[in-house]
């Protein structure tokens, strides 16, 4: 994006726009708020969807997160803070939602797909298998995995989002990955190192 004097990077330009949108939203500008929603809806929805594995529920939850954001706009200090806030609220709400439902989907090894020939479908099936296996993890461990691989967060960042000690995050990661590796290799007959 080219400014009048010189050139700004895309990230800087986007961040400047979000900062402006934040200020306007706090002053009651709903179109500006809609821009903020548009910029972050993918992240919020995906976190909820990958955790809850229910599109409708994820959409509801994501909407509630943004409604909550609207009430707390004045507390948001910067675009980076906004991203952090959205991740944190989405993560906690998703965990609370699961606890309210008291549903822990049980996926047996029999449900994991059989090894298939090596073509495009296998990749899809592998992804689906991974998602279903992650779904069986305890809530906090599940969210740690999702934040790590969807948002590419480091353990230190995950610990701040989930209000969890860093070592606990690392422990969740280690154990969950070992479990996934083990289950997949047994069902698919190949090692995922």
């Amino acid at each position: 994006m080219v400014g009048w004097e010189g050139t700004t990077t895309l990230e800087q330009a986007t961040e400047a726009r979000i900062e402006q949108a934040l200020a306007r939203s706090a002053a009651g500008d709903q179109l500006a708020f809609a821009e903020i929603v548009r910029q972050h809806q993918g992240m919020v929805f995906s976190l909820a969807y990958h955790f809850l594995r229910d599109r409708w529920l994820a959409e509801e939850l994501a909407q509630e997160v943004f409604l909550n954001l609207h009430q707390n706009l004045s507390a948001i200090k910067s675009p980076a803070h906004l991203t952090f806030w959205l991740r944190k609220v989405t993560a906690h709400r998703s965990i609370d939602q699961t606890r309210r439902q008291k549903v822990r989907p049980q996926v047996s090894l029999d449900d994991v797909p059989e090894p298939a020939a090596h073509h495009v479908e296998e990749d899809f099936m592998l992804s689906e298998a991974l998602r279903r296996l992650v779904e069986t993890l305890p809530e906090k461990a599940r969210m740690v995995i999702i934040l790590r691989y969807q948002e590419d967060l480091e353990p230190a960042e995950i610990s701040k989002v989930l209000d969890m000690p860093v070592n606990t995050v690392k422990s969740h990661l280690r154990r969950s990955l070992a479990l996934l590796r083990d289950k997949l290799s047994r069902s698919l007959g190949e090692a995922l190192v």
Partner: protein
Amino acid sequence: MSRLDDELKIAFQRQEPPADFAAHVLARLNEASVPQARPTVWQRLASVFAMPRLGYAAVGAMALLLIIIGIALLRSPRPAGVENNAPQVAISPGNPASEKPAAGNATPEQNASDKLKSGQPEDGTNASLSSTTAGHHAEPSSRPGGSHRLISHRAPVVAQQSQPQPSAEALAAKEKVLFALQITSETLNDVQRVISDDRPQDEKPEPVQKR
């Protein structure tokens, strides 16, 4: 990065919600706005002074600029020898749709516009621009006096003399573009106004900080 890491990244790629997600959020926002405690008179008064310093400075600077421009316009008569190439608009109060230019103020541009009214095509510019006063956006003219008033949005004489004269075509293009942007801007702000106005009256919070 292990293969499992790669596969997990693929499996947990971000997914987009439905296309009208943002619109739904706004709709819910307006339906279920949480009633907030009405700020007291003192809080409202305090909000007036809660503008950031920069805002005050900007407002002050704008006001000062407008005053200076106003004084300059009032004081300086139009030099006879200076050719006024900038487009001028005649406004007849009470009848914004009037076609007649102010008497005695016909300029080459006015004559060109008269020609166009008679149906002669304009060279160079693409497509036609047919326009009237945007009645929806026009405010009733309540200027006292009842005399015709010329509003000139020409550049300062000094700046014009140092620059090559722009062609009538370019000036017309500029006005056309500005007009288009103005309508766009107004329409967007109308949407914002309707969104704000349509919130339930009894739940409508008083915004503490206004733009």
